[in-house]
């Protein structure tokens, strides 16, 4: 299996003033070359620590990382990995073009600098000094720096932070264009929509573990449940639960609460079947809540109980 990316039994703890924090508690993932995978999870799920271990920036307490059959350090030294780290400013006193040229010079087979500039949407800003860029432009330059080596694996740790809506759209378009060339892309995000729109597969992490792993459509159905609240005095909960798109239904006095797998279908059916329904509210389940539901007990000892891993159809 030298063609892909293997994470085996990754464990990492950090010390802080409160003692030891287990950031990653046993990660097993196998990613084939050419896949685009979203690492999805709330803050503190262990996404960045996992990415740091994949890059060789952090050494795992136990377990191993293999990138195309090599250790992270060898893969990095061979110029096969590009990354946008979660935090990081640019060095000052160089123009965007100079900075990208400087970084390109470090790699054995870099992309053409002008091509990277255009791919990252930096044509207008290429002559500007790095200290004069906006937050969104800085992110684009960091993306260009990650791309310039023409890497086989691109790791992006929350890449769209501080980008505006248009910037995000352009960024993901550029990322998908790159991935379309057969490259492997792994990105961390806590936005389900980003994962859904840009990845083939999502790996959900919570409390340092993988809680679900599968195609984004399945993940979306699983965590994307929405709740419809409405006033409907004489409805039968069993009838409500049978409506299309509704998973469960509860009644509290005059109000009903419907948990829905497909809230669009559910609301249409609800209005059609019960025209008298009023005070309708639709609320999306937050990703964090969904993650908390998916994780059993965050503080159980992984030695007495194996890490929970929910397999969704692959």
């Amino acid at each position, binding site marked *: 299996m030298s063609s892909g990316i293997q994470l085996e039994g990754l464990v990492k703890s950090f010390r802080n003033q409160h003692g030891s924090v287990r950031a990653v508690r046993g990660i097993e993932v196998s990613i084939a070359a050419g896949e685009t995978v979203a690492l999805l999870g709330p803050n503190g799920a262990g996404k960045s620590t996992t990415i740091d271990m994949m890059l060789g*920036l952090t050494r795992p307490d136990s377990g191993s990382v293999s990138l195309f059959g090599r250790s992270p350090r060898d893969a990095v030294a061979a*110029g096969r990995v590009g990354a946008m780290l979660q935090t990081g400013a640019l*060095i000052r*006193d160089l123009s965007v073009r100079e900075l990208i040229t*400087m970084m390109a*010079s470090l790699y054995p087979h870099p992309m053409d600098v002008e091509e990277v500039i255009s791919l990252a949407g930096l044509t207008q800003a290429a002559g500007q000094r790095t200290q004069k860029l906006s937050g969104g432009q800085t992110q684009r330059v960091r993306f260009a720096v990650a791309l310039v080596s023409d890497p086989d694996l691109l790791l992006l740790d929350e890449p769209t932070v501080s980008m505006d809506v248009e910037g995000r759209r352009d960024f993901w378009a550029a990322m998908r264009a790159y991935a379309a060339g057969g490259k492997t892309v792994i990105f961390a995000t806590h936005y389900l929509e980003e994962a859904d729109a840009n990845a083939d597969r999502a790996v959900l992490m919570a409390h340092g573990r993988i809680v679900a792993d599968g195609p984004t459509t399945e993940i979306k159905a699983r965590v994307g449940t929405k709740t419809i609240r409405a006033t409907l005095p004489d409805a039968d909960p069993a009838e409500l639960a049978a409506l299309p798109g509704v998973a469960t239904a509860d009644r509290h006095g005059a109000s009903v609460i419907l948990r829905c797998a497909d809230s669009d279908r559910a609301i249409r059916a609800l209005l059609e079947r019960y025209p008298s329904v009023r005070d309708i509210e639709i609320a999306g389940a937050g990703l964090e809540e969904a993650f908390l539901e998916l994780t059993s007990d965050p503080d159980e000892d992984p030695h007495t109980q194996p890490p929970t891993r929910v397999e969704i159809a692959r």
Partner: protein
Amino acid sequence: MSGLTYMRYELLRAFRNRRFFVFSLGVPLVIYFVVAGPNRNVHNYNGVGISLPTYYMVSLASFGTMLAMISSGARIAGERQAGWTRQLRITPLSVRAYFRAKVLTSYAMAVISLLLLYIAGASLGVSLPAHSWLAMTGLVLVGLLPFAALGITLGHLMTVESIGPITGGTVSLLAIVSGTWFPITHGFLHDLGQWLPSYWLVQAGRAAITGHGWGLMGWAVIAGWTIALTALAGLVYRRDTGRV
């Protein structure tokens, strides 16, 4: 040699950073003219056998170049804080090439500082035979080696906020103890100074002018500090990056 382009841009960055450029090159020059300008006719300063303009040219050359070398620490601390060091660690640039670029950039600044002080000295009537200029330059460049390592060590130990005062304080103290501002010919400070690399840096000029060279003691002190500080820099770097 790997990282040549990288080094070229490092130099470009150093030269574009005006504030840094002005402070590390301008300050020694200003001090020189303020101190030596009004005293240009003192031909035998404090009985050490050389004129005051020559004495201070040598002093400020050592002070200025020492400052230029240690200031690589400020650049490293800045890059660490910006997360740039981490970005570089995920490139094929070797640690060795990274430090080589940093040290050679500092040396370039030091050489410019040195040349400016030579020109300033000449403008105040300092006149030396060619071999003295060359010997002095050679000894200064060798004497700066421990400070290159010190710069890297401080850069990985300190934060951007603390490194300015630490660097300034270190250089000022070393300058006093090493006889930069006034000759120290005997007593405790003299005995202490002998064991410091900065003393020999200041002595590089005088030794070249009087034709005595450094002597065994000077070479040994410079070599010892270079080895010790290089080892320390390696240790601090590994601790800072968690890399083996």
